[in-house]
């Protein structure tokens, strides 16, 4: 079951023609820029061409992207249950990031805190914009503390806060000293970057500097301790991953940031291996954890049954204990029949169908595994907020040009922690393993896994999505809520891969089965056959003739 998927089918339409058509309507300047963000795969494997990405969205072009605040508060801090997250700004941002990302959490332990169902905001009014909002923010922190006595309070800056110059970090320091709990702020104003990606970076940096390493007593510990980075527990994915790892005898110290708690972050430096799921949102944390604490990292993927098996084997191989390796094989052997049984039923109904995926920063890569398992072909894929390394692989990182927008995002300078640095592997061991073909600190990106003639499009927009669907007529399109209903008006089902359309989990073995079932339903439901009424013009002509008797 660990064999690579080889039966990729190239699309029948000439992608060059499609690209021409996509660009035809743009004003010349827009067309020139977009043409560099649309890439047609020529050969198998990696390609030595640049995919323009992480660049500004063209004003007026209807984009799928969100903002820095959304990436910071919504994506990264949203899933943490015992931090009071206060949005400092007018009411909108706090309101929109309230319970809209399905951050499932298990707060069933007696006395457990859970602030996820609450939205906290300073609800700034015009006088706060004119006279400054720092005093109101201080009062808000005090009120939150008096009401809830939380372990920690985080503050998120919205656009106007940055403009009027409220110093949320100074407020955080002052209130931290006064109240004696950890209070930290994020300069995650919406305009800070070109997409959500900037917000992920800002969030992770701050968790790294203010929280990680502040506790030496993890909530869980075992023989093999790992951190799961870049997994956000949409639809309960993190629960399924943890179930499988538990069964193998591997302990998850912290998931960043699905189903997370403050103490999971605070003691994350105690783990022995970092496993990176979403490369885009968190690769820098993996690097920093290695530099500061000596924790090596590997890229994993728990989306897809094959991918899950492969990732489990990779983790077991890292620890190298024959007992663990055997246990992992045992778990795979135990879990796989369920998957195979589901596939045997469903695959005949999905084989040969086609998909397109335009989501997030790694999902458009990972989910192709599940489609491949279903015998489906991915015709086109791309990311909303990727950087070049997510397409082309990490080897291009040194060549990525730092532009003005990237310069806004702080790059932390990290050194080995004088007390807590403890290399989990010697340099020689690491080198020897790498020489033997092991891959640490490695991600090859989306491009090598795509079939020739497929399209890779960065920052897809509404117009191009419409055109792609018109020309390719895929059997399913994967994107987000904003795209869902325009695609479905065309009679093509859209799978939301940010919210999973309120299904899931899709990770791990049981998740794969859920996905097979959901996709089967979506591509085979009767609803799409009812789009045209029997009397519609392009249906069979209705004629009737009444003859008077």
């Amino acid at each position, binding site marked *: 079951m660990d064999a690579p998927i080889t039966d990729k089918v190239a699309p029948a339409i000439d992608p060059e023609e499609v690209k021409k058509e996509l660009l035809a*309507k*743009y*004003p010349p300047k*827009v067309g020139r820029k977009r043409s560099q963000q649309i890439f047609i795969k020529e050969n198998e494997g990696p390609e030595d061409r640049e995919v323009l990405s992480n660049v*500004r969205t*063209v*004003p*007026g*072009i*209807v*984009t*799928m*992207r969100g*903002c*820095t*605040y*959304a990436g910071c508060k919504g994506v990264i801090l949203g899933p943490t249950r015992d931090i009071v997250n206060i949005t400092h700004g*007018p*009411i*909108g*941002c706090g309101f*929109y990031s*309230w*319970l*809209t990302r399905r951050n499932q959490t298990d707060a069933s332990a007696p006395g457990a*805190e859970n602030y996820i169902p*609450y*939205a*906290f905001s*300073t*609800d*700034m*009014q*015009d006088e*706060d*914009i004119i006279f400054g909002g720092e005093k*109101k*923010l201080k009062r*808000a922190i005090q*009120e939150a503390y008096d*009401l809830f006595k939380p372990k920690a309070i985080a503050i998120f800056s*919205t*656009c*106007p806060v940055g403009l009027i110059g409220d110093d949320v970090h100074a407020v955080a320091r002052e209130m931290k000293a006064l109240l004696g709990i950890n209070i930290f702020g994020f300069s995650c*104003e*919406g*305009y*800070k*970057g070109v997409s959500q990606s900037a917000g992920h970076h800002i969030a992770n940096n701050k968790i790294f500097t203010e929280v990680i390493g502040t506790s030496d007593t993890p909530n869980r510990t075992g023989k093999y301790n790992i951190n799961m980075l870049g997994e956000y527990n949409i639809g309960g994915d993190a629960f399924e991953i943890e179930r499988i790892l538990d069964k193998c005898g591997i302990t998850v110290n912290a998931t960043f940031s699905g189903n997370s708690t403050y103490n999971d972050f605070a003691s994350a430096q105690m783990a022995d291996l970092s496993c990176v799921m979403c490369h885009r949102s968190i690769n820098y944390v993996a690097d920093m954890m290695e530099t500061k604490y000596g924790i090596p990292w590997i890229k994993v993927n728990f989306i897809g049954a094959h991918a899950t098996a492969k990732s489990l084997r990779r983790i077991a191989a890292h620890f190298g204990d024959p007992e663990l390796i055997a246990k992992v094989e045992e778990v795979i052997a135990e879990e796989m029949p369920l998957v195979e049984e589901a596939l045997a039923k469903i695959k005949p109904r999905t084989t040969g169908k086609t998909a397109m995926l335009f989501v997030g920063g790694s999902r458009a890569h990972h989910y192709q595994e599940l489609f491949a398992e279903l015998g489906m072909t991915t015709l086109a894929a791309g990311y909303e907020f990727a950087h070049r390394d997510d397409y082309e692989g990490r080897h291009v990182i040194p060549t990525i040009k730092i532009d*003005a927008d990237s310069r*806004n995002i702080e790059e932390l300078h990290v050194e080995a922690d004088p007390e807590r640095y403890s290399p989990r592997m010697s340099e020689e061991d690491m080198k020897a393993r790498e020489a033997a073909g092991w891959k640490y600190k490695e991600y090859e990106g989306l491009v090598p896994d795509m079939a020739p003639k497929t399209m890779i499009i960065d920052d897809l927009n*509404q*117009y191009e999505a419409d055109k792609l669907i018109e020309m390719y007529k895929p059997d399913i399109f994967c994107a*987000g*809520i*904003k795209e*869902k*209903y*325009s695609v479905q*008006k065309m009679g093509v089902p859209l799978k939301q891969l940010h919210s999973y359309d309120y299904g899931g989990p899709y990770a791990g073995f049981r998740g794969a089965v859920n996905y097979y079932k959901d996709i089967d339903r979506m591509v085979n439901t009767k609803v799409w056959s009812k789009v045209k009424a029997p009397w519609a013009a392009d249906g069979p002509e209705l004629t009737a003739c009444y003859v008077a008797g």
Partner: protein
Amino acid sequence: MAMLRHTPAEITVDRTALTINPAKTCQPVGAMYAALGIHGCMPHSHGSQGCCAYHRSALTRHYKEPVTAATSSFTEGSSVFGGQANLLTAIQNIFSVYEPEVVAVHTTCLSETIGDDMTQIVEKARSEGKVPAGKHVIYCNTPSYVGSHVTGYSNMVQGMVKNLAKSSGAKNGKVNVIPGFCEPSDMAEIKRLAKLMGADVTMFPDTSGVMDAPLTGKYEMFPKGGATVEEIMSSGDAVGTIALGQWATAAPAKYLDAEFKVPCEIMGLPFGIEDTDAYIMALSKMSGKPVPASIDFERGQVVDVLSDYSQYFYGKRVALAGDPDQIIGLTKFLVELDMVPAYIVSGTPGNKLEKAIREITKDVPAEVKFKCPGDMFLLHQWIKQEPVDLLIGNSYMKYIARDEDIPLIRHGFPIVDRFGHSMFPTVGYKGALRLMEKILDALLTRRDRDASETEFELVY
């Protein structure tokens, strides 16, 4: 284990700075929704792209319909140097790629704080030929730190009349109807009643046909519905304006009156019997048409059902959270049903609301607690102190409903976990019937669930 486990019953902290679980959101989402009620309109958010993404997502989750809108996509540079270049580029790109009839620009807290001058930028776009002949750009100011989504709706409707309405000097015999922030189903019902009356009305905005469009196999970026630019232009020639909802519609109605001498009548959204009666009377007065028997019939049905079921409504306590115009209409209707609107909060600031609620509830034989601006955290604290029989509010109220085991009727914005709000009206006589059905269903289903075997009844 309670979902909102940290909400204490006792109010021990006097909150002056921290809003928890807001009963409002920000201006631009209301402006975007209003703009979708113009046929062939591309809403445009002038600010960083997160606002636009959030507003599109919020409206999409509520209506389960495509919501297309463009953004100026500010980055740090535009925030420092101003957003003029971004907006000019955006206007040009929107017209060449999407070909709308009109682009409706609203600001955000970002562009407001840096002080971008919409009048000047839009004038520049026109003079530089970025607005094709026969096409339009309208705009309004919607800083998120003033008012709420309702204010934003009002400002965009104001933008429609300010930018488009004209007067030819001759009256066209039509009546303008401006509906407040309500569902496409409500707008359709408001229009249907006018049609039954035989009144010739121009309704704007009109999201019916846009935010409840059919699935046809083809995506129409600009569906058939909505008020046309020509209709809005001609609003200056109307014989009168009926504005339904003080908060959301008074300003544009007064503008038409002041600018073009179109007299206006500003009233409530037509919930329940009395406010629907008032709408019908206003239509009759302005159009000069008598009220037809078909309307008497519809009205009589509502009174009939109320008389049949009065005992189940009488004295039941309700907690409400929502927008001013909606809250006023619902409270009035609850009072008509002899129910007790025990707790009311609205996030939209302004002290006129309290006065209106006090007036409506002055004869209610029980205490009515009210807070504006108030939030759902406070509402929940009140409920914990003394429970109610029913909750009415948006989907966020389901957490209170679950924790306190109280039935919830979803009403207002946003409703993300049920459908019906955009398909079936709650205004007019038909809407009153539907609300009564929903209230009775909720109360009697609860009664059936809680009844002992000996008390369990078949007939109600």
